[in-house]
Structure formats: structure tokens, C-alpha cells
């Protein structure tokens, strides 16, 4: 069991480290959010799994903490992304086209599929 716990913990730690490197090295805000939202969530889930296997007591508290991270990370990321889109003066790069601009500015623009 110690081997399973160690492997889960190291994989989770490596994911968190990769997320940190991505947040440090990526160029603009949305790329950093891409790195900072998904990988640490999976890393925290794996580390919580390792803790649940390793510990004899206190499992509900640990599982609840990890589930809170797992549920609230998409919500927080969505809020930050929307705020960064609406706020002025943040350097975001939208090379692939800004599909949201028509809906935000136009109001009655065609919300259909991609052109």
C-alpha cells in the first residue's frame, strides 16, 4: 500500500509542479488560466486519493476538502475569465477570433454556430 500511496502522491505533485511552471512561463492570462486550473485540480485529487489510502481516520474531512477544490475550481476560473474579458487593460491574445464579441456588443447578433 505504501507504494500505491507514493506513486499517487508523486504523480499529483508532478502535476502541481507542471502547473506552476506553466503559470510562470506562459505568455498571457488565458494561457496561464489554462495551466492553473486543470492540472492542479487533478493533482489535488490524486494527492487526496493518496491521503485517503494512507490515513486511518479523518477520511471524510480530507475527501470533503478535495471535493470542494474539485467543484469550485471551474466556477472560480469562469469568474476570473469573465472578469478579465470585461475589464479594460488586460493583455489577452485572441488570435483565433473573438466569438464572444458579437454576443457582448451586438445584443441581437446571430448567436448561431461558428461561421
Amino acid at each position, binding site marked *: 500500500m505504501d507504494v500505491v500511496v507514493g506513486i499517487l502522491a508523486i504523480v499529483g505533485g508532478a502535476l502541481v509542479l507542471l502547473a506552476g511552471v506553466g503559470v510562470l512561463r506562459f505568455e498571457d492570462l488565458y494561457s496561464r488560466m489554462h495551466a492553473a486550473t486543470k492540472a492542479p485540480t487533478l493533482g*489535488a485529487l490524486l494527492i487526496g486519493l493518496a*491521503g485517503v489510502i494512507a490515513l486511518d481516520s479523518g477520511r471524510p474531512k480530507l475527501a470533503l*476538502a478535495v471535493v470542494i477544490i474539485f467543484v469550485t475550481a471551474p466556477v472560480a476560473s469562469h469568474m*476570473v475569465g469573465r472578469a478579465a474579458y470585461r475589464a479594460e487593460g488586460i493583455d489577452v491574445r485572441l488570435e483565433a477570433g473573438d466569438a464572444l464579441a458579437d454576443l457582448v456588443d451586438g445584443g441581437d447578433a446571430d448567436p448561431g454556430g461558428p461561421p
Partner: protein
Amino acid sequence: MIAVAMVLVGLGSACFLLRAVLGPSLADRVVAVDGFIVTIVSLIVLNAARTETDWFLGVALVVSFVGFVGTLAGARFVERRGG
């Protein structure tokens, strides 16, 4: 092996903290602090697994809640004040 994982998470935590210090806009700092709080919870859980004690896990629970609420407050602040 859990100590190795703690070192990895600590290095990632330092990266998040450096981005929170450097980050050109306020939204970058909010994102970095959100990730930093996830690393703090991970370190608490790993330390509990390493020492096989459970009395510190309530801190992980509270910190994850506070991190979520703090990120939401930061996002609202960015939205009103601008980057």
C-alpha cells in the same frame, strides 16, 4: 516517497508565488493565488499522510473554502476596477 512529492509540490508553490509577485495584471495575481492555495491544501494533505495524523485536516477544509471565496472576490474586484 511522500517527501519527494512534498518537494515537488513545494517547487510548484514557489512558481505560483513568483507569478503572484511578478504578474503584470491583477487578474494574473488572482489566478496565481488561487493555484497557490491549491498547493497549500495539497501540502497539508501530504503532510497528514506522511505523519499519519489527522488533526490538521480541518485546516485544509477551511483553506479550500477561503480560497474559493477569495478568488470570487478578486474576480469581482477585477471586473469593477479593471486590470
